[in-house]
């Protein structure tokens, strides 16, 4: 067990009680803030090297989000840490009854490669805020960010209580053999199953942020150009490698006819006539992922885009039509800059289509008709739901972010991160009187 020493070192630090006082947690969080400020340039460089992430995107989706979560946490930590007093019944009127937020102990955070800073730091903020010690496992696929995090974070955070482990698939499996008090995993459902099976051996509670195919239903009554922009933005951001990206569109044949030119216009507005030359369009992260996404292009035919450059890991923003339910592209989460459009005869058919499949992490509806929005909302199930836009529901710190079914279990962001990494301990403090009761 190569990591046993590290885990027991952190556990000893945990037992010392060091991470519990609010002052300590604030100091560590502020240090994380300094990391974001001082290493901003390094983050931009590393993400560029890993997947040619546009600086513009990195600012929005990696740095700003972390800063906003950090500020929100620092501003609210003392409130969140307070004992939550509860309503008492007749027998306990004179007692103190409250819920104490206890840290779990030594927690493990496993982060993915697509938003390697955001998806490591936002859970980390919650774990530190809740008073835990943390082992972090950044993704080995985003190699440059992995190196940055492994080298730099220990210079900002208390080495006794926070450690970064670099590991590939096999070593991560060994890491999971250790007992942790909480595991936070972001990644694919198939690896999620492996993580949960490992957690079961130690009865470790977890949050799994997984994925799936996020449907996007576009009704006939809507402002097509606005819809096209919002859908294109959500789909092609980070070259489609986003867990909450709209994965496929469902609409009527008439709407498809209107949508195609509108999408073409939006893509042109965003990335210019040759997106490969745009500084604002990312690349597929690696060879293996490129091969996988490339193969999906063989479904239907490309009404927009379809160009590739294997050496550069470039796939153009692509829209596919004439896609069938059984095509390869409809069998797995795309996680690439390809948007298939499938036509349906009606909203009811769209809902039936959606409900025949695994529950997604996000579900999108575009319609200027309230009734349509409500119908889809009421008759489907998903982690989160957004009407008339994409992605935005996950940028609010007041909304819980998480999946359901195959798209995940548990939730976080804002206060929910703090609660995820806390054990809600029931406490009843009684006096010696009223023995007659």
């Amino acid at each position, binding site marked *: 067990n190569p990591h046993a020493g590290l885990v027991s070192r952190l556990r000893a630090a945990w*037992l010392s*009680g060091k991470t519990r006082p609010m002052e300590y947690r604030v100091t560590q969080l502020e240090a994380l803030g300094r990391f974001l400020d001082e290493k901003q340039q390094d983050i931009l460089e590393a993400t560029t090297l890993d997947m040619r992430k*546009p*600086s*513009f*995107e990195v*600012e*929005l989706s990696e740095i700003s989000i972390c800063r906003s979560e950090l500020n929100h946490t620092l501003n609210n930590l003392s409130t969140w840490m307070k004992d939550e007093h*509860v*309503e*008492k*019944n007749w027998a*306990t009127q004179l007692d103190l*009854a409250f819920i*104490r937020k*206890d840290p779990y102990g030594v927690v493990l955070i496993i982060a993915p490669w697509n938003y390697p800073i955001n998806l490591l730091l936002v859970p980390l903020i919650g774990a530190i805020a809740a008073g835990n010690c943390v082992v972090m496992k950044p993704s080995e696929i985003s190699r440059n960010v992995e190196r940055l995090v492994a080298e730099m974070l220990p210079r900002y955070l208390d080495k006794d209580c926070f450690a970064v482990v670099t590991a590939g698939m096999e070593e991560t499996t060994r890491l999971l053999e250790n007992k942790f008090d909480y595991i936070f995993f972001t990644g694919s*459902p198939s690896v999620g199953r492996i993580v*949960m*099976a490992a*957690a*079961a*051996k130690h*009865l470790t509670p977890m949050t799994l942020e997984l994925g799936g195919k996020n449907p996007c239903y576009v009704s006939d009554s809507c402002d097509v150009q*606005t819809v096209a*922009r919002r859908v294109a933005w959500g789909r092609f951001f980070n070259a489609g490698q986003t867990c909450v990206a709209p994965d496929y569109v469902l609409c009527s044949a008439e709407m498809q006819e209107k949508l195609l030119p509108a999408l073409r216009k939006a893509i042109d*507005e*965003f990335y210019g006539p040759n997106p490969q030359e*745009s*500084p*604002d369009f990312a690349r597929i992260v690696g060879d293996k992922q490129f091969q996988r996404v490339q193969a999906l292009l063989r479904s239907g035919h490309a009404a927009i885009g379809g160009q590739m450059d294997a050496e550069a890991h470039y796939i153009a923003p692509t829209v596919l039509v004439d896609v069938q339910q059984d095509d390869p592209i409809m069998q797995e989460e795309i996680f690439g800059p390809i948007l298939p459009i499938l036509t349906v005869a009606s909203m009811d058919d769209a809902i039936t289509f959606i409900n025949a499949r695994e529950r997604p992490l996000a579900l999108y509806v*575009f319609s200027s008709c309230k009734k349509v929005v409500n119908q889809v*909302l009421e008759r489907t*199930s998903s*982690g*989160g*739901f*957004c*009407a*008339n*836009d994409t992605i*935005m*529901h*996950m*940028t*609010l710190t*007041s*909304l*819980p*972010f998480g999946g359901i*079914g195959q798209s995940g279990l*548990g939730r976080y962001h804002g206060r929910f991160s703090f609660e995820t990494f806390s*054990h809600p*301990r*029931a*406490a*009843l*403090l*009684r006096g*010696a009187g009223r*023995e007659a009761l």
Partner: protein
Amino acid sequence: MERMQQVVGRARAAFNSGRCRSLEFRMQQLKALERMVQEKEKEILAAIKADLHKSGPNAYSHEILGVLGDLTLAMDQLPSWAAPQPVKRDLLTMRDEVYVCPEPLGVVLIIGAWNYPFILVMQPLIGAIAAGNAVVVKPSEISENTARLVADLLPQYLDRELYPVVTGGVPETTELLKQRFDHILYTGNSTVGKIVMAAAAKHLTPVTLELGGKSPCYIDKDCDMAVACRRITWGKYMNCGQTCIAPDYILCDPSIQSEVVENMKATLQEFYGEDVKKSPDYERIINKRHFKRILGLLEGQKIAHGGEADEASCFIAPTILTDVSPESKVMEEEIFGPVLPIVPVKSVDEAIEFINRREKPLALYVFSNNKKLIKRVISETSSGGVTANDVIMHFFLSALPFGGVGNSGMGNYHGKHSFETFSHRRACLIKDLKMEVVNKLRYPPGSQKKL
């Protein structure tokens, strides 16, 4: 065993029909459940008596009262629990509707335990129904009379397809666990808890595991000894010690050990009379296997009180052991019986260290007049829940979440927490297609100006 597949399949089809979503439907089912408990009270008490030799009044206060309370609370609060909750908006979403919408998970599985066989299926069931789910109920086969009764009664009062009862032992449960559920709530021991979680992992099913452990009870020298010992006696020997949150063992200074014993003996006399065996208020061990297991724990121990046993009736007298060594067998596993070891410790520091060296317990108890000491014990230890200057009682306040941590479990329920356990809280952002100009800030091409 196709039967399991069929039962779960039928429940899923029934759930998909949408009929359990309306609040009216859920209320109707909860009301029916309430009628069941009221109309069949006699039968329920008789089944519990047959399983655990429990008196009517005890069974009523342990199992029925709590269920009726939860039903009343759920029916009263359901509209508020199920309502969408608006949340704080930011600058970009000021004009939008932003809220969290509680939704049912789908088909959930509740696996009950034998020690409080009625309430441990009913309380989760109430929450699961209130949250709009279909529920497969699997009562423990070890408390066979209550299991049989639940299997008979539920279909008489509730929708048969949505809330089926499955009976059987290990093979049936194993087959059941192969099916896909949207949540599993299991009450029992850690060993089986791991098996349940491993089975759930195959389907990525979230779980609530209500397990157990050794719940420590620290008695400070500065406390009202008579009151403390009476309360501890009550909590320890109720249900013949077969309570997941019973004080498992006592930690106290050696100088007060005999005072503790004397006080407890006096209370035992008060509760059960001269001849405990004849008291209608004293239960029995559930079966011979547990009877033998518990008796085995007495080997080599100093018995300060009790120790009598009768295999034929699975009777073990309320027993107190003194000067118990931390390495002895009785300090290894959860006792789950009427045996109370006292382990001497010289200080509260030693007590805290002792507790922290072991698995996190489901409950933790501390008796003291010193508020600072109590706060310290709570802050420096970890447990599912805590009651100070009493035992068990945090279980009865439904506003408090009931659950374990570490080896004693994960997740929680009771009252509103049951509803939340069995719900998915879906984040919803409802925008319109106007104000597109605001979005221009986030669209490429990027520029310093935009940032």
